[in-house]
Structures are given as structure tokens and as C-alpha cells.
């Protein structure tokens, strides 16, 4: 039992960058631009399916906001709008005060996203996956890219796994490689889409620690979409509850816990507790 606990601590410590070196090269490189996000009147329908029915949300610079909601409430669609993979029917998204559809937006801001499926390229090694953005945009020479990639992998607790193919990694490790890939982009904003879905409780905690570390060490703005209530309360500065395409409650974890709204209570209270009452 003791050995198991020790292994868990070691794993979590590595993942949260508490190991030797602490990914210092990458931490020195990350600029922490601390941009805010402003979503105004966002609406989106797919045919007759009205997924987003007018979303208004303000995220302060350096804040970690969790979008919480049941499956199929439009959380991922909202995230895809923020990163520009979907175009809204109406409404605007401003990041750092700039509309994401402005032609110069991509020149001034970098947004990265950790996908639910991790979206690693199976034909590339872990190192090539993490280095892809830097290599394609010729940001640095190969030597510096290698150092940054190693540093990013150290931060996510995967040092020494550079030459492994994604197919040989577990779901949690893939998620951490995807996070390393997102970090080396030196983003102003990181989006996480269901970062703990399909992971065991220990790995869920590891991912949660990683998000907290990014918040405290780099003070990067993060938006996390999840239906994992424990993770939400663990990492969030503020929580938005999304239901049927609208944000029905937005506040700090304490405010959400104390909220009397039935829909919110129904969602954040464990089912067995509701039944007991």
C-alpha cells in the first residue's frame, strides 16, 4: 500500500513539474501574455438543432474558467468557436480585446487547444508531435526546439519518452503529450476539451494538478470544458454552468456550491445524495 502511494506521489510529482529541472527552459520561454476572453451573444445552430442560444461570458486575464455541463449541452461547440474551428451564426468572441475573425488576430495571439481525443499524429513520435508547431513555423533552430520539447515533456512528467510513438502511450500520457504540444506554442490562452474523460481517478488528479500548475506558475488564461464536477471544483477560479445552450450560472466554486437554482443543484450534487434526500 505504501509503495503504491509512493508511486502515485512520484507520478503526480513528475506530472506537476516538481521533479529535477522543473522544465525551467520552457517556463523561461513562456511569456504569459494574460489575455482576457469576452464572448457576446454567441449563437449557433446545426439545422434545426439550436446548440448555442446566446452565450455571454467574460474570462479575466490569467483566470482558469471551467465550463461545466451535461453531455450534449454545447460545451465543445463553444470551445471550437473560441479557437475558430466553427463560425457562429451570430455573436462575437474577443480575445485580448481583438475579434478572433480579424485578419491580424492570428499574428497577435496564439491559442492552443488540448483535444478530447488528444489528436496526436500517429505517424510522428512524441517529440515530433510536440515540436510540430515550432518546426512548421520555423520559430527556432533544431537545437533550441529539442531543448524546449524536452522541457515541455519534463513539465508534463514524460521526460525520456521523446522517441515513443503515440500508439504506445496510455490515454493519460497522450493527454499530457497533447498538453506539452499546446504549451510549446507559447499560447495566450489554452483550451482543454474534456481533459479527464476516459481517465482513471489517479490520472484525473494528475491532469488536474497540471492545470493548477499552469495557473500558478505561468498564470496563463485557461478555459476547461468538462462534465467532471470534482475536476471543475479542483482547478477553477470560476465555473460557468451550461444548460441547453445557455449559461445558467457563473461564479466562483463557492458561489456555485451555495447556488439555490434547482438545475445547478441537480447537476453538481451527486445522484446518490439526491436519491437519499
Amino acid at each position, binding site marked *: 500500500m505504501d509503495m503504491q502511494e509512493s508511486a502515485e506521489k512520484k507520478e503526480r510529482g513528475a506530472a506537476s513539474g516538481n521533479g529535477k529541472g522543473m522544465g525551467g527552459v520552457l517556463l523561461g520561454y513562456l511569456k504569459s501574455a494574460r489575455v482576457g476572453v469576452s464572448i457576446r451573444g454567441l449563437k449557433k445552430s446545426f439545422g434545426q438543432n439550436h446548440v448555442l442560444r446566446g452565450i455571454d461570458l467574460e474570462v479575466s486575464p490569467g483566470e482558469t474558467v471551467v465550463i461545466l455541463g451535461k453531455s450534449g449541452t454545447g460545451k465543445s461547440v463553444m470551445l471550437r468557436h473560441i479557437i*475558430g*474551428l466553427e463560425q457562429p451564426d451570430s455573436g462575437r468572441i474577443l480575445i485580448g480585446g481583438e475579434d478572433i475573425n480579424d485578419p491580424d488576430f492570428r499574428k497577435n495571439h496564439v491559442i492552443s487547444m488540448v483535444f478530447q*481525443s488528444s489528436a496526436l499524429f*500517429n505517424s510522428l513520435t512524441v517529440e515530433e508531435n510536440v515540436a*510540430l*508547431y515550432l518546426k512548421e513555423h520555423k520559430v527556432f533552430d533544431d537545437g533550441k526546439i529539442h531543448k524546449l520539447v524536452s522541457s515541455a515533456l519534463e513539465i508534463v512528467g514524460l521526460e525520456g519518452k521523446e522517441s515513443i510513438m503515440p500508439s504506445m502511450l496510455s490515454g493519460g500520457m497522450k493527454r499530457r503529450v497533447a498538453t506539452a504540444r499546446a504549451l510549446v506554442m507559447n499560447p495566450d490562452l489554452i483550451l482543454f476539451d474534456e481533459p479527464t474523460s476516459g481517465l482513471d481517478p489517479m490520472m484525473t488528479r494528475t491532469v488536474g494538478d497540471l492545470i493548477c500548475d499552469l495557473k500558478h506558475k505561468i498564470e496563463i488564461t485557461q478555459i476547461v470544458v468538462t462534465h467532471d464536477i470534482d475536476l471543475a471544483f479542483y482547478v477553477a477560479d470560476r465555473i460557468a454552468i451550461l444548460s441547453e445552450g445557455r449559461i445558467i450560472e457563473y461564479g466562483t466554486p463557492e458561489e456555485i456550491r451555495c447556488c439555490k437554482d434547482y438545475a445547478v443543484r441537480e447537476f453538481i450534487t451527486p445522484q446518490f445524495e439526491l436519491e437519499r434526500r
Partner: protein
Amino acid sequence: MNGVMSFFKVTGGLVSLLMETLYWCKAALGNTDKILDQLLVIGYQTLPVGALIALFSGGVLALQAGPTLARLGIEENVGGLVGLSLVKELGPVMASILIAGRVGSAMTAELASMSVYEEIDALKTMDINPVRYLVMPRFIATVLALPVLVIYMDVIGWFGGAVVSTINPEVHLSFSVYYRNLADLVDFTAFCNGLIKAGIFGVIISIVCCYVGLKTKGGPREIGTAVTKAVVLSFVLVLVFDYYVTRILLFFGLD
């Protein structure tokens, strides 16, 4: 009505992807490693099978035509018949079908899988254009590889015809007579004719297979459907364009 709309949508999508790919060919020099990778994949997947197909196709042409020509007393023309058939028509079409079946299907499966598992989206979020990164290297590699594969298959097909013409007692032609007749009838224009067709078929196969792959949505089942769709569409378009390209080449006196 839906069928008509779908036809125009697919045609528009194919032309649009072709234009974007041609635009991104300007980045070819900076992506030579990816193009070489694709050329290696194409070579590895097609050369052994191509040799086998060409050898037996040349052989069967000689087997079918040889005895008939021998009965007419013009069996020395087997070389020219096999040579011209392969160079102008069979070589480009067989190579295209081979490329579509082995390489095109793999292209569609890979890109469809990337679409389904959000890898294309990941590329977009990294501000990496999927057409530049994924389609352009495959396009250039296919357009370069197909004419080379046609030459390779032509030469092996000629040899297959020569072997059958020699060992078939009804024809019994020597290698020298076979190849002399072939050299007399297969001129440079005929050779170029086949290579032009191969280049055009390379454009069709790469664009169709990449387009279908990139447009795939859903799950693993849709990946299989996409592969079938891409290969069938490639076959149909290759055969349809074969007719029109031949007509155009005839019009310009190149056939």
C-alpha cells in the same frame, strides 16, 4: 435534386482543392522531405505489384494477338502491337488503377482517420494549413511517380510480351525481331502521349483521394466508406478522362 446538388458540390470541392493545392506548390521546395517520404511510400507499395501486373499484361497481349497475327502472316508485328497498347493505353490506365487502389486508398484512409480523430483540427489550431502540410506533398509525389511507374510498367510489359512471343510455338518470334518491330512503331510521341495521361491521372487520383479523406466525418465506419468512395470515384474519373484526353491528343495530332 439532391444528387444534382451533391454532384456540383463534389465537383466544386474538387476544383477548389486542386486550385488551393496548386497555390501551395510554391512551398514545395521547403517540403522536399515530405514529398520524398510520399514518393518512397508510393514506390514501396507499387513497384513489386506493378512489375507483376505489367509482366502478365504484356504476356497476355502477346498470347491473344500473336496466333491471330501469325495466321495472317504478320506475326512480326506483335512487338509493335504490345508496345503501342502498353504505351498509349494499358500502361497509364493500369498504373493509375494500381496507384488508386494501393496508394490512393491509403491516402484517403489516413486523411479520413485524421479528420475523424480531430488531427486536422489540431493542425488548424496550430495555424498549419492542412492543404500545404498534407495534400500538396501527396499531390506532387503522385504526379511525379505515376509517369515513372508507367515507364517502368511499359518496359516490363514489353518484356512479358517478348517472352510469350518467343516461347509460344504458334508465334515463335525471336527477341530481336520483337524489339525491332516495337522500336519501329513506338515513337517518342506515343511515349509522351502515355506520360501526359499519367500526369493527368496522377492529378485526379491525388485530389479525389485527399478530398474524400479530408471531408470525412463521423467514426471508424465512415473511414471505410470514404476509402471505397475515393477508389471508385478515382477509377471512374480516370476512365472518363482517359477518353477525353485521348480525344484532345488526337485533335492536336499527338496520338
